[in-house]
Structure formats: C-alpha cells, structure tokens
C-alpha cells in the first residue's frame, strides 16, 4: 500500500513542482511571443542543430515535462515490440522480444553521442503470492513466517543505456517505478505491522527469487542506439512466465531528467491443448478430475491389452 501511495504522491509533487517552475519561468507562455532571451546562458550549443525553424510544429505530448529553449522542438519517444501477441503452447520454452523505438527531434549527433538515456521496463500482469521464510526449529528447516502480497508484477525486466544510478536520481526512478528497488508491490493489509526493515527484507526476497527464475531481469547496457534517434533492446521471457497482459514502458532521459514516456502493450496467451487443460482444470474441476481418471483407466487397460496380446 505504502509503495503505491508514495508513488502517486511523488508524481503529483513532481507535476506540481514542474507547473510552478513553468509559471515562474514563463508567466505568459502560449499567449505572448517568446520574450527576449533570459539572462541565463542560452541552451547548450549542439553541433548540428537540426534547423528548428523549418521543422513542422510538433504537437506537444502531454508527457513532455521540462520546458525547453523556445527554438528547439521537444523530444518525444515512441516504441513498439516485435511481437504483440505471444502464444504459449505445450512446447513453449520461453521467447525473445525486441523492443524498438525512436526519439523524435533527436538532438544527438550520432548513436555514440550518449546525449539520451533510454530505459525500457516490461512488466507482467500483477499476481498475488505468499512469501515464506524458513528458520531452524529443533534441527529442521521449517517455514515459520510468511507474508502475503496482493500485487506483484509476475515479470519485470529493465533494460537501459547505462546503469540506472547514472541515468537518473533515485527520486526520479522511484516515481516511475524503475529498478528492482522500486518495483511496485503491494502487501496484504495483514502486513501493516511490519517494520520498514522487514518490508525491505520481504521485498528483496521476492526480487531475489524472481531474478533466480529469470522472471525479473536487468540489462544495464541493454538499450543501444542504432542512429541519432533509433534504439532497440532485446528481452527474453523464460518458459515459466505467467501469461497475461504485459506493459512495456519506455522512458527517455536527458541529463537525469525525464523527457518523455511511451507505453505499449503485449499479450501472452495460452493456446492449444495447454490452454484447454488449464482452463478446464480451473473452470470445471470435477469434470476435469473425472476425465483424468477416465484417461488413466483407458491408458492402463490399453497397455495391458497391447502387452498381453504380444505375449499370446
């Protein structure tokens, strides 16, 4: 709970702060023509400024946060995934996904300039789970404590151009839920008496175990620019991934500042016999049980028939 609340609270604070900043800097923005250059140093000179006066007016995306020099159009990020719908069949052994995107109005000279940082987060449908901890009771290792999470992303993969601590400050990362420390998780209300240390221990355990199963993963240099504006990153999903709707969020940073975000979805669905078995088992458990018994009886009788005939 606390995580979620803090999350939206920080966003609100950030937005309010930005609004105030806007109001102070540009009291008449959008009404009067841009005033003469303020006394501050002008925008950092970029080598080949893409002739801004010729560029068509770009619609200002609502996510764009920081006001820019009047002459330069704002950057925005767009992205897509290689496969929007992935079918999990009986032989599913994991899959790879490519996320690719572009920075509109990129101001960097080449792919190597490193002006921008891109962070891509793919998160799976939230699931409920119980975490348990063993301790030694009279020589035996026994589950002695547990806590329930009402929402934990079933899958969480981060890929970035650089290590996250170089991309942005913790506050910025936290507000966007980027990084293993800030994975959005909600505890069941029975966990409200936990201390901050205990909460951290449980969260860390979830992240550690999910990372062990490759359901949570991080690639600190996974995003590569392929040109001034084009970037791509590869992700892999292990076979144990939970099916459902996945959200891919792409964050564009410059100098630790979040410029733009873009969200796209992808779906992982069960298909084929696999899908049928799972649905049947949960939707009609009695008939599923009866059918399983019938299959077992049939298989047993078939086998004895086949082998007895061979003997005869």
């Amino acid at each position, binding site marked *: 709970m606390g995580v979620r609340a803090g999350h939206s609270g920080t966003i609100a604070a950030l937005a309010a702060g930005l609004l105030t900043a806007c109001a102070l800097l540009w009291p008449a923005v959008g009404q009067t023509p841009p005033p003469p250059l303020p006394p501050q140093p002008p925008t950092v000179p970029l080598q080949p400024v893409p002739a801004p006066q010729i560029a068509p007016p770009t619609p200002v995306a609502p996510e764009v946060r920081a006001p820019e020099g009047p002459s330069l159009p704002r950057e925005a990020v767009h992205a897509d995934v290689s496969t929007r719908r992935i079918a*999990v*069949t*009986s*032989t*599913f*052994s*994991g899959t790879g996904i490519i996320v690719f995107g572009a920075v509109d109005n990129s101001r960097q000279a080449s792919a190597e300039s490193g002006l921008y940082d891109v962070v891509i987060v793919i998160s799976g449908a939230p*699931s*409920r*789970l*119980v*975490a*348990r*901890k*063993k*301790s*030694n009771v009279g*020589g*035996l*290792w*026994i*589950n002695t404590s*547990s806590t*329930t999470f009402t929402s934990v992303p079933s899958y969480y993969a981060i890929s970035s151009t650089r290590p996250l601590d170089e991309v942005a400050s913790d506050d910025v990362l936290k507000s966007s839920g980027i990084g293993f420390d800030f994975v959005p998780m909600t505890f069941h209300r029975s966990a409200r008496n936990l201390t901050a240390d205990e909460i951290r221990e449980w969260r860390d*355990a*979830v992240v*550690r*175990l*999910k990372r*062990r199963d490759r359901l949570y993963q991080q690639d600190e240099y996974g995003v590569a620019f392929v040109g001034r504006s084009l970037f791509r990153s590869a992700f892999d999903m292990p*076979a*144990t991934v*939970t099916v459902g709707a996945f959200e891919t969020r792409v964050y564009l940073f410059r100098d630790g500042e979040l410029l733009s975000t873009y969200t796209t979805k992808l779906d992982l669905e*069960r298909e084929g*016999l*696999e899908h049928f*078995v*799972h649905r049947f*088992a*949960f939707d009609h*458990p*009695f008939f*599923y*049980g*009866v*059918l*399983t*018994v019938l*299959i*077992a*009886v049939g*298989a*047993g*009788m078939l*086998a*004895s028939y086949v*082998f007895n005939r061979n003997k005869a």
Partner: protein
Amino acid sequence: MNIYLPIAEMSANLFLFIGMGASVGFLSGMFGVGGGFLMTPLLIFTGVPSAVAVGTEAAQIVASSVSGALAQYRRRNIDFKMGTILLTGGIVGSVFGVEAVKALRRAGQFDLFVIISYVTMLGVIGSLMMIESINALRQLKSGVAPASRQRGQHNWVHRLPFKMRFHRSKLYISALPPLVLGVFVGFLAAIMGVGGGFIMVPAMIYLLKVPTNVVVGTSLFQITFVTAATTILHATQNQTVDATLALLLIVGGVIGAQFGAIAGQRLRGEQLRFLLAGIVLLVALRLAWSLVVHPGELFSLTPLGRP
C-alpha cells in the same frame, strides 16, 4: 524436447518424465509394488510442487492398478464384500486427506508434512524389509527352512463386534478392522500420493488373516477405486492434478513395468526384497537430508490462485 506442464506450471523435458515413469515402472514391475511411494518423492526432487506431485500420482496409480485389478477379477481373486468395506473406508479417509492437504497448503506446511510422512513411512518399512530380507538370506545360506506361518489362530481382531461372514476369504470377522484399515490407507493415498498396498497387503495377511491369493486382488480393487476418487477430490478441492504430467508418467510406467516384470522373474524373492529395501531407505535418507541441511535460500514464493 521441452513440454510445459499446465498445472505444475513448469517447463521440463518430455523425456525426463517419461523416463522417470519408466524407471519407477520398471521397479514396480520387478518388485510387484505400486511405485507411488517412489514416484512422489522423485517428482518433488524434480521441482514439481509437492501438492501437484501427490495429486498427479493418484491419477497414475489408477492407470497402473486398473489392469492388475481386472486380471485378478477374471481369476475371481477379489473378495468384493471385503473390498467394498475397505473401499468405503478408503473414500472416507481420502476425503479427510484431501481436506488435510488443503489446510496444510494454506498454512504453508504441506511440503514439510509430506517429507516427514515419507521419511517416517519409508524409514520404518525400509528398515523392516531390510532386516527381514537379511534374515531370509541368512536362513537360505544356512539351509534352515523358514518357519511356516500359523493359520487360523485367533487374535484380538476376532473379539471385535459387528462380525460379518466373508465367503470368498473364508473368514468370519468384525467389519471394523477392514473399515479402519481402509480409512487409514485412503488417508495416506490422499496425502502421500501412494496406493497404500504396502500397508494394506501385510495388514490383510497378518492382521485379518485373509488368504494370500485373495489379498492382492482385493487390495488392487480398493486401490483402483480409492485413487480414482482421490484424483477427482484433489482436482476439485486443490486443483493439483496435472493431466499432462500424469499421462507422461503413465506412458513411461506401463512400458517400464513390462520390462521390470521380466527382470523380476530372474531374481530371487529375498534378493529382490533386499534391493527394494535399499532403494526405499535411500529415498528416505535423501528426503530427510533436505529437511536437515541448511537450505541455500530461506525464502520461498507460492503463487495464490486467481483473485
């Protein structure tokens, strides 16, 4: 070739499970035992959640015992009156067992419970078998004929009320001991994923004095129906029956059992029992080890069903 198991929610090699089914099937064919008590621990070692291992194994035992039960039926080796009493008790025990599994899973203690049950059961049975087979082997060497079992002696079983006549078994005994035995075996079937033949057969022979030729057929009759009921109960109450996994184990099991039966004919009974006792004790030790040794990771995650 990997296959995704829909209920166990894990991906593993197709041939691993067929091979496991075949190996345990081979042993069960060779020793003439059900094999559930070996398969369930093996599935747990592979990483199948213990509740799914238990639920799925019940389905496999249905397949492996149904043909035997039919063969015994054709030879008229089933005491249906005794079998029905054992079966009634078995289903009652299974209902309690499945509820126990449900409660223990919710408390997060099912893994522990299964392992302790197995260590106890396999430890006791393995040790008894080991001692018995060593004695038999010694007697064989010294050439002393083993003492023949005394029949027709009356024990406490014969002083209980609700006496019934069991024509096929040529017995006039109380219905209570078979009923209680059935409940116990049904409970074991539900919580351990075993048929329970290894308890039921000796109990019927030594306690109830059922003639040996009727014992096997009657216990197979009971096991087939009790494990069928257990499968349906687990599927309904716990959603822990993986039909895909069960099918793989069945396919491996029926093939392995055929070869095991052939191999079993070439070995002497005492040697077979000694071997089986060794395997049982090894499995028990391996399970006990997993409780005692420090687990590398103290935490574990269990997904909760759909919200």
